[in-house]
């Protein structure tokens, strides 16, 4: 069960797995996720389903190995099994013919953008991609965006690839240039998603974000993933994970994402001495893109 078919490193600490999971592959729709557990004492954590191949019975996962569980996942080799894998969970993305869509991925948030962008493309939408990352070696999935977008704007914080600056600067230019934008999808670090929401709010541009709060069961039974949307409490696992960006309480989301910061399990400490990259503090209380396994 859940055998890893192939494994590939696509950026620093960033891995792509193809996993045999025929039942999940058969039913997966854009925007859905799986919950995994990788060892007997491990936690349950969600990862977005990037793609699936129903004929081959496989699913594709892309994640950044920064937390304990994702590091253990990245340590698995082809031929080995993932202990527990359940899905597809969450509401599929609402896809329609919007017209011209801007799809934005911040850092490893590019991975969960891919399946939704593909579905938007398949529904006949015209896509512009904005692909932002810290530096050139952290830019991922440009080719796959290029295959479905009319154009892809790449930007990096340090200017080592594409333009220098944040994804929000690129979007702002597009809005100021009066480019037609009927729909915006933004997935990445929470401050980035909030930044996009603030940019599109004045013009009332339909904007959707995909949230990744802490989850346990992923099926609505615990309420740990609750978020406030339009003043109402929602469970991201069953009511989302996608919501209207203009109605999300991002401050609360960020606070709740940090609820267990500073707590280190034995498995976390096992990874500490040698393999935590200097620039990727996994449990240090920052809310940058390294906090969440798939960059959301």
């Amino acid at each position: 069960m859940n055998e890893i078919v192939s494994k590939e490193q696509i950026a620093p600490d960033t891995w792509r797995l193809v996993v045999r999971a025929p039942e999940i592959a058969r039913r997966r729709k854009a925007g859905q996720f799986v919950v995994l557990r990788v060892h007997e004492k491990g936690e349950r954590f969600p990862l977005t389903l990037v793609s699936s191949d129903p004929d081959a019975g496989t699913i594709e996962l892309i994640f950044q190995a920064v937390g304990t569980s994702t590091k253990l996942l990245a340590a698995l080799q082809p031929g080995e099994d993932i202990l527990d894998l359940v899905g597809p969970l969450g509401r599929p993305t609402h896809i329609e013919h919007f017209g011209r869509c801007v799809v934005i991925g911040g850092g490893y948030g590019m991975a969960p953008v891919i399946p939704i962008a593909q579905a938007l493309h398949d529904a006949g939408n015209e896509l512009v991609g904005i692909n932002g990352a810290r530096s050139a070696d952290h830019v991922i999935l440009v080719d796959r965006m290029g295959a479905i977008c009319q154009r892809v704007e790449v930007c990096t914080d340090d200017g080592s690839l594409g333009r220098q600056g944040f994804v929000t600067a690129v979007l702002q230019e597009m809005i100021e240039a009066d480019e037609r934008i009927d729909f915006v999808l933004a997935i990445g670090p929470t401050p980035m998603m909030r930044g996009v929401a603030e940019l599109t709010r004045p013009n009332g541009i339909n904007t959707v974000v995909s949230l990744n709060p802490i989850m346990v069961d992923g099926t609505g039974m615990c309420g740990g993933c609750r978020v406030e949307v339009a003043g109402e409490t929602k469970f991201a696992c069953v009511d989302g994970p996608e919501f209207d960006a203009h109605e999300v309480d991002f401050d609360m989301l960020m606070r709740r994402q940090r609820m267990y910061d500073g707590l280190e399990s034995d498995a976390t400490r096992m990874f500490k001495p040698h393999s935590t990259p200097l620039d990727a503090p996994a449990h240090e209380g920052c809310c940058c893109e390294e906090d969440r396994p798939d960059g959301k």
Partner: protein
Amino acid sequence: MGSRVMTQQRQPMPERPADERVRDFDEVPIGYTAEMAVAEAQRCLQCKRPMCVEGCPVKVKIPQFVELIAQGRFSEAARKIKQTNAFPAICGRVCPQEGQCELTCVLGRRGEPVAIGRLERFAADWERAHDEVEAPAHPAPTGHSIGVVGSGPGGLACAADLAMWGHDVTVYELFHAPGGVLRYGIPRFRLPRAVLNAELDYLSKLGVTIRTNFVVGRTATIDELLQEHDAIFVATGAGLPRFLGIPGENLLGVYSANEFLTRVNLMRADRFPEYDTPVHCGDNVIVVGAGNVAMDAARTARRLGAENVTVVYRRTRGEMPARVEEIEHAEQEDVRMHFLLSPIELRGDDDGWARVAVCRRMELGEPDETGRRRPVPVEGSEFELPCDTVIVAVGSRAHPLVPDTTPDLDVSRRGYVAIDDSGATSKPGVFAGGDIVTGSATVIEAMGAGRRAAESIHRSLTGQEPPNGNGG
């Protein structure tokens, strides 16, 4: 049959002292010795028309098994119970006997009823401890296949009966381990996991297949399962937490009882950092609600090291839905009960952590639709209780995944699945029972519903009565 000593008092259950047991998650009651069990069993009058059986949702053959204990034939007693209830070690621990078999025991009219639950537990524990659990005989296969959705008490009871009657049964469970609320909800100190695992092992000896990590409604729909199975039993429970709907409920440190208990019971947060899943439990814990789940959460918080655990309930002690034993155990463990009190707001500190529960006093007014007097707020009575952790245990809602993904399944206004007297739903071949039909109830009521559905499924597939009759 020997003569009975009618005047003998009910044998008390030996328990570990409170100050010892709050330091671990080991079981609280120690269990009867053989001598105590025989003495208690000899109190039974062996009524010709046993009222105790009438009070049992699964019609356990109570006088017969009690008599076997009185004769010292303990493992035979366990097997007698298993003719109608595959899980005596669970039921002997978690059933609310005081409102069921022991309520209707004739001894209870003048004194204390026979301790049927403790005897049930004793027989099952004896059989297991002495390695005398027999692999049940495998009947001739009927060729029928049944899918059971949910591995909680209702699903397990249904699966056990159907397997005993020769059907091929697969149980689907969304978590990575089976048992439903028996695993994620009920703490170890009430139901040790060795007991639960042994009962599940018995189920697999019956030939039942359990598929974990399978979310019906997501991994496959009911319609897809009907292509593989001749009938489906939906026992998905009422697993969705209710919240209070008051300001501040999404502050840090505020948990649903479901999340708090799942983190500890299923994910072993009590053994963090050995296990990866953490839980926050401060010194001042407020538990809102007064059912068994609230008692479980409060007692779990004490075991996680909380100094002050306060149960806040808007009615009075008399209306508490929890089992009497759970309330007593909680109070022995220094859980405080505040009655006629309702939180109206939670306030946090600058970092977003809950620190204060603003509570309002209540008084009892006219009876409501449940017959209980309705709590009415006392205006101007607000005051503040300090807190670090708040656990909301005010009930649960129907799990919506199966109804939402099964278009021709009739549901009630609140999302519970509608069934007829036989347990059949509006959809041919699909039966339902337990909390997904009734709303939150007890383990044994769900088991009773599972057994009734098993009978209906057997009749609908074979046109015959089940081999053991209704077990009465």
